């Protein structure tokens, strides 16, 4: 994968708490001075929240469809 995608993967592991201790510390130190990276981390967190919302929305639609199929008499 290209470097930008590798970075996204790295931040995903960081946010999920699955980095090795050394890597995690390295990243935390970089975050102290690297505002660009801070911004990326924030946006990535926001992206996961967006996906969670999209997931809830999809599940809600599926449940609504089930409801209509089973309990809505036309």
């Amino acid at each position, binding site marked *: *994968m290209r470097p*930008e*995608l590798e970075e*996204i*993967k790295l931040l*995903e592991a960081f946010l999920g708490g699955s980095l090795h201790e050394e890597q995690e510390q390295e990243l935390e130190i970089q975050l102290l001075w690297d505002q660009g990276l801070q911004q*990326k981390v*924030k*946006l*990535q967190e*926001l*992206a*996961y*929240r*967006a*996906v*969670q*919302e*999209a*997931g*809830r*929305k*999809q*599940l*809600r639609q*599926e*449940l*609504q469809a*089930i*409801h209509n*199929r*089973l*309990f809505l008499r036309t």
Partner: protein
Amino acid sequence: MQTLEQPVIATDIREDLVQHREKTLEKLYAKAYPMVLHYVKQQHGSPDDAKDLLQDAIILFYEKVVHQKLTLTAAPTTYLMAVCKNRWRHELEKRNRQQELSPEVGEQLQEESALEAPAFALAAFVDKLGEKCRATLVAFYYLGQQLEQIAQQHQYRNVRSATVQKFKCLERLRKSLQGFSIHHFR
């Protein structure tokens, strides 16, 4: 470490939910809705209240089982009923309180909850990525599906290409959210 007694149920329901979501949810819904409806009707609620209550509870249940690895010590419907009853009691208290308030204050409260409401504002950014990206991200991060399953269902050549696509979609999402965060977080 898993013990051999109850957690087995939880593991199975997790498998069922992730692998056969539609079928599992339908079975659950068919069983639970009449129970919730019966209860809510007795407690001064409408069929719509029962429907909203149950759907919220199932969404919560899905997230708990799939992401937090909830260990069920009771049947799923028992769990859902408990959540619904609990929430309905809170809802009734809230409605009672709002009735006691003066009309202006009640209106103000409603406006405030409307402000909290852009619950799906972020989801729109995911929708804009196109159906394949949306479905892939939701399947992996929310529905908890394995990349093998996702690759098959969404016509990726293989797991590797599904993985790369997933990160590309995430990259696009992150970029598109830049505008949103400027408006809402500064």
